[in-house]
């Protein structure tokens, strides 16, 4: 009985341990599949993020280039229109040779006409020479008639030729007139373009002047505000000047103040630095596009004004 009891008390076999192993494997396979699909799904997100970043970045750059830094935009504008006008002038130069070429072509047909006339004159001249022998009257008459008919024919020919010449001359004149007109038109166009350019430049210059005026106005305001807060240390010899680099945040807050060039008097330097920090919301132009001009301010303060 004791032996039987011991045998009986031996732990029973665990049920379905193989099935448990298979299920464990299955769970892992499912989880790995979910994980992989999750990673693939996340893979696409960084792309769109990067696209957004690139779309955002270039925008402020042209704005700053066009609006804010008018002084830096000037050379760009001046250099850019120049290549634009060159292609304009080139076509004009190309049209001129075209219009010039036909002129010699028309001039060349007219010289050959003159030799014809000369030939005719020469042909007329031998006629009196033919009259010299003066044989029979009838013959002479016939010849005279023939000559008359010839003369008439020649005269008709001459008339026709003259008319043709006139026509040709008229055509040439018309053509020349047309060319002149074209030239005038192109000249007018050029003038127009130049005027437009001048207008644009004038506008740009005005805008630049306005921007520059705005910038200088606010620079003066910033300097005035800083100066109003300086507590000057007394009795410094000479007129020392201290220079600071101030980094601004949009809104006029001061991010950083760095001493660029000391005056040699630490009391004066620190007084100016304190004044800069005290005048914290610095006056900035309302146009945020102009802020780039003020991002890195260079402040120079003289001891004696």
């Amino acid at each position, binding site marked *: *009985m004791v032996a*039987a*009891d011991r*045998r*009986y*008390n031996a*732990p*029973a*076999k*665990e*049920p*379905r*341990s193989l*099935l*448990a*192993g298979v*299920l*464990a*494997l299955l*769970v*892992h396979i499912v*989880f*790995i599949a979910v*994980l*992989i699909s999750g*990673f*693939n799904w*996340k*893979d696409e997100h*960084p*792309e769109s993020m*990067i696209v957004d970043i690139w779309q955002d970045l270039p925008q402020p750059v042209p704005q700053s280039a066009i609006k804010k830094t008018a002084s830096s935009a000037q050379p760009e504008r001046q250099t850019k229109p120049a290549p634009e006008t060159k292609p304009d002038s080139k076509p004009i130069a190309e049209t001129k040779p075209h219009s010039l070429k036909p002129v010699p072509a028309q001039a060349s047909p007219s010289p050959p006409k003159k030799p014809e006339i000369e030939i005719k004159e020469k042909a007329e001249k031998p006629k009196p020479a033919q009259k010299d022998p003066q044989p029979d009257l009838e013959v002479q008459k016939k010849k005279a008639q023939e000559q008359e008919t010839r003369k008439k024919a020649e005269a008709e020919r001459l008339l026709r030729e003259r008319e043709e010449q006139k026509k040709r001359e008229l055509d040439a004149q018309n053509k020349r007139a047309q060319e002149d007109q074209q030239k005038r038109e192109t000249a007018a166009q050029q003038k127009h373009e130049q005027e437009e350019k001048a207008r644009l430049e004038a506008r740009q210059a005005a805008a630049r002047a306005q921007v520059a005026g705005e910038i200088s106005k606010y620079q003066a305001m910033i300097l005035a505000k800083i100066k109003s807060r300086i507590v000057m240390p007394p009795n410094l010899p000479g007129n020392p000047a201290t220079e600071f680099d101030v980094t601004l945040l949009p809104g006029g807050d001061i991010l950083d103040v760095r001493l660029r060039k000391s005056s040699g008097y630490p009391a004066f330097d620190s007084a100016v630095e304190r004044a800069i920090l005290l005048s914290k919301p610095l006056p900035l132009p309302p146009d945020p596009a102009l802020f780039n001009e003020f991002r890195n301010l260079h402040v120079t303060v003289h001891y004696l004004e």
Partner: protein
Amino acid sequence: MNAAVTQDLSLFHLISSASVFVQLVMLVLLLASLVSWWYIFRKWFLLREAVKQSDEFEDNFWRGADLNVLYQRAISSRYTSSSMERIFVAGFGEFSKHKPGANIDMMMDSIRRAMQATYQREMDRLESHLPFLATVGSVSPYIGLLGTVWGIMNSFRSLSNISQATIAHVAPGIAEALIATAMGLFAAIPAVIAYNRYVSDTEKLATRFESFMEELSNVLQRRAPTSQE
């Protein structure tokens, strides 16, 4: 497109490009996870079966079946019998071994000891592998963290050679290192949940067994005087 955007961030690429130590950590965690899930399922089946068999046996027992019949049935099916059945067999076997006229207190003591021994053995069987689940649940996050710290250390060390450091240089290394933490958590969370669940299940079973032991000893004590007579 993926190649253009710094690095390929697929799971397999991250794992294969990780350092050997991190890969080792991942392997350990994967094995721990596999084994813990295997135990989770095994214990699930075991406990479910134990509860079901206990229900059946208690049902039979309290229906007033003859104890001798129950004992014979349990002996004949010794390898498929339930824990409660075994406790009953141990107690009733001890009871039947006693000759009539013996000291009741001594008899009851020996019956209780026999049942207690079987109960301990059964509880040991039911609670087996639970410490493993507890270990996996508490340690695998640390193992994963170790792999992550190691991977991040490596990625920052490689950063020192680059003059212009960007997030793109560190990001893949950190991502592959963080996989170790993810795996650690992946192994730990089910293990902890299963451990808590199974501990409460076995405790419930234990109280059932203990109360059954008390009830059985009462029943047997009541039968003792009659056998003495």
